[in-house]
């Protein structure tokens, strides 16, 4: 006589220590085995796109900070380059160099958070504190420049809000010297730790074709082996002047495209960002960061879509202008919004504990998913 069995529906979130924000995951489980995952979002929806239609172009910039609050410089960068494309203005060289340095510093800071929380979810609680200690250096560099540690409103259309502090170059060089040994320590403590590898290798394997079809980008796509980086595909700002590599997942300790590969791509990208900063920090030309900022920003009628490489993936802004002071439509293509769709695909056949590992490796921020 067969027993009547039912699958259990377990609800993770909206309040949960490791869903990286207010995300609700509805798990359909049988014992410990996952049969299906359905993400529910919308808990952090703050109507960014509707607000953007009511404000002028420069007034939208602080709102873009709050989309992906862990990589605010990147959001600013994306919006500002999109509007500048529509306006068709030329930016001073000094502004370009400083923007690149700030974006790369922000990439390191954001990857530190991603790696630290990934480790903390798996149970390694100490690297979390070591990496946040190093992030404090970067945040104090930002604070020295524009007065804010997390949400900057720094990049303006046509320039920057403040020029860099006289001590900035020296302190950044000190940071670079200090940070390289930290990556070595991180590799010894976490990356090649046998238990960490057991928890993340061969989990959540993402084949390259599925990744492209689902629209994945950033470390998620590069972890599956495709060397696709917007900074090299569609070079924006002055990235084509710098020499850096694109790390991809090679399946060093498992299969290509598993959680460990995505994690290791982030570790390697921090090293590449240090290379870019080293190349740029000595070459900052003289100039005035406020000289090219237009008095009134009234772009001509038209549409533009432009994208930048945020730490989480490809951030795109689609702006339609109808010739007024306010944008007609601003649509944000958030990388985490697209990456989160992969949860349902990746979790099939794994255990409950793996859901956390997979979610940590996708590295989502609810601010930009819900906007």
């Amino acid at each position: 006589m067969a027993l009547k069995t039912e699958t259990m529906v377990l609800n993770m979130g909206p309040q949960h220590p490791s869903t990286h924000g207010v995300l609700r995951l509805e798990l359909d489980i049988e014992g410990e085995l996952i049969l299906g995952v359905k993400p529910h979002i919308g808990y952090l929806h703050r109507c960014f796109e509707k607000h953007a239609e009511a404000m002028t172009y420069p007034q939208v910039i602080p709102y873009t900070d709050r989309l992906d609050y862990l990589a605010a410089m990147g959001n600013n960068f994306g919006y500002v380059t999109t509007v500048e494309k529509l306006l068709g203005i030329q930016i001073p060289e000094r502004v370009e160099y400083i923007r690149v340095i700030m974006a790369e510093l922000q990439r390191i800071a954001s990857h530190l958070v991603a790696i630290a929380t990934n480790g903390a979810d798996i149970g390694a609680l100490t690297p979390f504190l070591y990496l946040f200690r190093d992030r404090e250096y970067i945040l104090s560099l930002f604070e020295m420049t524009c007065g804010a540690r997390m949400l900057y409103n720094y990049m303006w259309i046509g320039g920057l809000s403040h020029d860099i502090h006289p001590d900035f170059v020296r302190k950044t060089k000190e940071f670079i010297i200090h940070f390289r040994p930290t990556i070595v320590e991180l590799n010894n403590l976490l990356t090649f730790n046998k238990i960490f590898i057991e928890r993340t290798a061969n989990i959540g394997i993402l084949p390259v074709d599925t990744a492209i079809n689902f629209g994945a980008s950033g470390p998620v796509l590069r972890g599956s082996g495709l060397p696709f980086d917007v900074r090299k595909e569609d070079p924006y700002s002055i990235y084509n002047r710098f020499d850096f590599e694109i790390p991809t997942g090679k399946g060093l300790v498992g299969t290509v495209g598993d959680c460990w590969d995505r994690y290791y791509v982030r570790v390697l990208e921090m090293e590449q960002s240090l290379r870019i900063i080293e190349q740029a920090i000595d070459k900052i030309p003289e100039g005035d960061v406020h000289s090219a900022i237009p008095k009134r920003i009234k772009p001509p009628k038209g549409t533009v879509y432009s994208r930048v490489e945020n730490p989480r993936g490809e951030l795109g802004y689609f702006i339609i202008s109808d010739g007024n002071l306010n944008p007609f439509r601003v649509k944000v293509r958030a990388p985490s919004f697209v990456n989160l769709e992969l949860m349902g695909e990746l979790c099939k056949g794994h255990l409950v504990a793996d859901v956390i590992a997979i979610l940590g490796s996708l590295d989502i921020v609810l601010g930009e998913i819900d906007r």
Partner: protein
Amino acid sequence: MKNPEEIFELLKTEFADVILGIDKETPTEPIIAVDPTQISKVGLFLRDNVALKFDSLMVLSGVDDANGTKVKDEDGTDMISGGTLSVYYHLHSTNLKHKITLKVSTPRENPQVESVYNVWRTSDWHEREAYDMFGIIFLNHPDLRRILMPYDWEAGYPLRKDYKNPEFYKGMKVPY
């Protein structure tokens, strides 16, 4: 690597009356207009054709064109009647490195667009968001429900230009 005019010619020879034209004047990118109920076939062709290989849908955005006539509602606010809602598709090829923008427009009163869920899975949540924010129904989408607003939001589609906030939602006062 092809430029937008060549892609337009290729599409025109394949699908004669489905492709409605190309807009080359408005900055900053040329946009190809397509019939809304045939977009899935066009998408499949764009993805699988060897010379085009558009395997990545970068973004799918709904837009309220606000090109209808303004009428006054009972309580004196402006409503828009007539006109179109549009959906813009930005495609990109990881192999051949070219890009193209497509646009479909549907009437505001009964907006229906065919879904490209089976062509690019990226469109799954993007179409749900376009439905949630504009009310565009995507035919053949397996799970079309609201995504950012609460599942039982009755008061309309927020990103339309004539959207008004309701007074109460489940007993809570909405205006701030």
